[in-house]
């Protein structure tokens, strides 16, 4: 009986706790199933890990600032780079982007919550404790002398380095289990997003009238459902190898090292798109508003994203051009990898088409978007270079690749995360972020980013492999590495300004009002922050830009769509 279960939960708990305001507030956040609170917790949690993993990157740059660096030992360095990579993907990128989808998808489709609010909370707590488990390895990971502490096998954990003979102790087990947990959480969220977008849209919102962001959330969610299981399966096999003496990847007993690579990259490459498509989604919402124009080629944008989703699942072995595939295999994956550039190019052209003929407002969210356009263009072009398999034989596993994927992960994704935070922060908190501090943040971050990552292309082309804890003098790498490290410092200062900006706004920010950017999607029609039920009455829409129709009754969108 449902009634009796409800009685077992002390419904008055919150009332009791009201005498302790802080504890009561905390309790509300812990037990919440509200998509907005969970979204904010995802984003805030992700930002905390962003600071931690960023400090780890700063330590890496300090070590590499000079040749023969001796700031940290090789063992510590290898843990730093493993934790930095793993955390930035699973504890920063995934939760922040999931957090935004959590927050925005129900608001944008005019729903009161995600389809399965409890599943949503379940996913969040799995993610949080999975992430804490990874960092807990610093305290609890033991092993033989000199082998313990945090995982040190790299974020793609190539076999057989992860097998027992080479990775004693249990640091690798922490890596496996924490990512297994967060993967389950991500799958739950993905199912939730698909269900919400397909079943919870408000009256009048056909699939063809969903905002671009929601469409891309659906694409990402489908990709997560398809690509996370191979990773989880491979990790389960690795656990069997380590604990039960299976030999999937144990080359000393006839296992296959290549098999792990296939499993990992059939997850790992689509994962890049799982992270970058949300960045596309933010750009597709923010650029139109600050250009004062409707998105150019809505249906083409959606189709191109679906195309990226499909093609990106057949390109994984371009991470493995150097493993000795046949010429035919290499040619196939070179071709498929280049093909993914076509829909990606289409997206850039459509953003250009959106800007063309607009009236651009250079506020902070737009600045980040414009930098994103250039940086993503460069990232795409170096991506084409890497898809040229022979070129990749020279550049794979070097700083050229490090530069390329940081252009994607920072130049595109982190820039768009900042754009999204500046854009939707007023909605979530009711306060504006400071435009002036935002400008400082943007320009310093831009300068630091280019100092660090532009130069990395050249150190790679000059023969510097990635993941080396030091390099010898006299190889022509000193100046480049020093510039890279100074750039990291500049980025650090920029992030500090961002943190100050957020704190300042939360305490004494300017009131935002419902619709500070004069925008067009449904989330701006409700209050800032929105009430728990989002909309007092369920909205009814007739076009992709319901607020445009409201603001321009003489010239509504639905006449043209």
């Amino acid at each position, binding site marked *: 009986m449902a009634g009796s279960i409800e009685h077992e939960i002390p419904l008055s708990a919150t009332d009791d706790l009201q005498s302790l305001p802080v504890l009561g507030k905390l309790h509300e956040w812990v037990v919440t199933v509200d998509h907005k609170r969970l979204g904010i917790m995802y984003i805030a949690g992700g930002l905390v890990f962003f600071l931690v993993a960023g400090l780890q990157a700063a330590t890496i740059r300090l070590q590499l600032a000079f040749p023969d660096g001796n700031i940290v030992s090789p063992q510590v360095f290898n843990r730093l780079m493993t934790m930095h990579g793993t955390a930035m993907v699973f504890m920063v990128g995934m939760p922040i982007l999931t957090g935004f989808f959590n927050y925005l998808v129900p608001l944008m489709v005019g729903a009161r919550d995600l389809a399965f609010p409890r599943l949503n909370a379940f996913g969040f707590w799995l993610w949080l404790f999975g992430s804490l488990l990874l960092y807990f390895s610093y305290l609890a990971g033991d092993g033989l002398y000199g082998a313990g502490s945090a995982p040190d096998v790299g974020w793609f954990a190539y076999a057989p380095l992860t097998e027992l003979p080479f990775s004693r102790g249990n640091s690798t087990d922490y890596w496996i289990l924490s990512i297994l947990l967060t993967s389950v959480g991500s799958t739950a969220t993905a199912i939730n997003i698909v269900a919400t977008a397909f079943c919870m849209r408000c009256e009048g919102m056909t699939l063809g009238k969903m905002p671009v962001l929601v469409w891309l959330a659906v694409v990402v969610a489908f990709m997560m459902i398809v690509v996370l299981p191979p990773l989880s399966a491979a990790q389960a096999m690795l656990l069997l190898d380590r604990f039960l003496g299976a030999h999937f990847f144990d080359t000393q007993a006839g296992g296959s090292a290549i098999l792990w690579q296939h499993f990992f990259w059939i997850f790992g490459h689509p994962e890049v798109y799982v992270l970058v498509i949300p960045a596309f989604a933010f750009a597709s919402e923010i650029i139109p508003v600050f250009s004062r124009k409707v998105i150019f080629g809505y249906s083409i944008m959606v189709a191109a994203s679906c195309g990226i989703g499909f093609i990106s699942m057949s390109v994984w072995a371009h991470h493995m051009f150097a493993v000795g595939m046949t010429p035919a295999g290499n040619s196939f994956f070179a071709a498929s990898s280049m093909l993914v550039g*076509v829909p990606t190019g289409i997206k850039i052209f459509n953003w250009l088409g959106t800007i063309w003929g607009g*009236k651009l407002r250079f506020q902070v969210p737009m600045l980040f978007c414009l930098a994103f356009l250039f940086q993503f263009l460069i990232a795409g072009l170096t991506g084409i270079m890497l898809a040229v398999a022979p070129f990749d034989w020279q550049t794979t596993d070097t700083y050229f690749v490090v530069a390329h994927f940081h252009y994607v992960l920072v130049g595109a994704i982190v820039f768009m995360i900042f754009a999204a935070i500046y854009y939707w922060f007023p909605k979530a908190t009711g306060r504006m972020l400071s435009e002036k501090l935002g400008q400082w943040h943007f320009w310093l971050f831009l300068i630091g980013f280019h100092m660090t990552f532009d130069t990395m292309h050249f150190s790679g082309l000059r023969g510097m492999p990635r993941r*080396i804890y030091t390099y*010898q003098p006299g190889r022509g790498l000193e100046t480049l590495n020093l510039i890279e490290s100074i750039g990291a410092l500049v980025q650090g200062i920029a992030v500090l300004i961002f943190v100050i900006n957020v704190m300042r706004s939360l305490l004494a920010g300017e009131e935002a009002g419902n619709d500070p950017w004069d925008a067009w999607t449904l989330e701006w029609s409700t209050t800032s922050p929105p009430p728990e039920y989002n909309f007092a009455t369920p909205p009814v829409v007739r076009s992709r830009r319901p607020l445009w129709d409201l603001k321009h009754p003489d010239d509504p969108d639905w006449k043209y769509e």
Partner: protein
Amino acid sequence: MQRWWLTIAVIACAPVAALANDWGMGDSNSKIPVSSIFSPVSTPAHEINVLALFTIAITAAIFVIVGGLLTYAIVRFRRRPGEDDREPPQVYGSNPIEFAWTTVPVLIVLVLILTTARTIYTVQAPTRPPGAISVRVIAHQWWWEFRYPDLGVVTANELHVPLSDRQSPTPTFLDLESADVAHSFWVPRLAGKTDVIPNRKNTMWIDPHVAGTYLGQCAEYCGTEHGLMLLRVIVEPRADFDRWVAAQKQPPALDASVAHGRQIFESTACVNCHTIQGTAAVGRFGPDLTHLMARETIGAGVAMNTRDHLRVWVDDPNVMKPGALMPAMNLGDKDLDDLVAYLATLH
């Protein structure tokens, strides 16, 4: 006040003080040209270089055009001060334009795919002339073993290959194997990298046509000392190469003055891992030391091969290469001196 400056000076010098000794490698490296992928001296690297330049030209053109359009649009369509608040005309899309900017990239990609495939087949399917040299490359955590099966030579970390001239090519074919985890063999000026994977045989080839020393290193993360798993390729004219081979096949000369050092070597754990021909030492876990002093460097390129460095290394390899699998030998000073004196005779 002066103490103030002293503090600042100490803090400023801290990063420099944190630098490890470079064991003479800086001087040695700076005499060798930078290992840029754009200065190839061997056919595979040369083919890649041509394709890379072609790709860079195409992508640079795309960048100039698209980046230029973006810049133009941002400048031209900026909101000017004093402009009214009227919204600009709303344009929902255009199918002819979409068609155009889909077709052009498809054509560019088609050209790139074809040129790429041609280079892949050129590099991956070479013809093997009769004079080719074969080398088995066996990667270990964190050093390289080189075996010349046809010549009966075994060495480590410094690969000697003959110059290959275009009229009568003598390329070197490498069979890559790993004794433990995945590694990658990379000498940028000679060829792209090929992974060295346990339980699997990979091959690659080089035909250097300029004599000299080329720096390379392991390019796949392989554990603690991945960063210092360095390698050198020494390309010599055929006559020099043949002389080197002949010298490598000689057993080391016996020097009575270092008999005590040799006795220490043969009676301690050294023999478990190292081979010296003509002695009781036949270990395979570490590098073959028969002609140790013929090599420029020790510890897979961490230090120049001098007596002093050798002494530091044997005393405790962790000083030069933290995490190296060779244990500290814990010998007394006298024994250590004698042992190093013996090693120094292994020409």
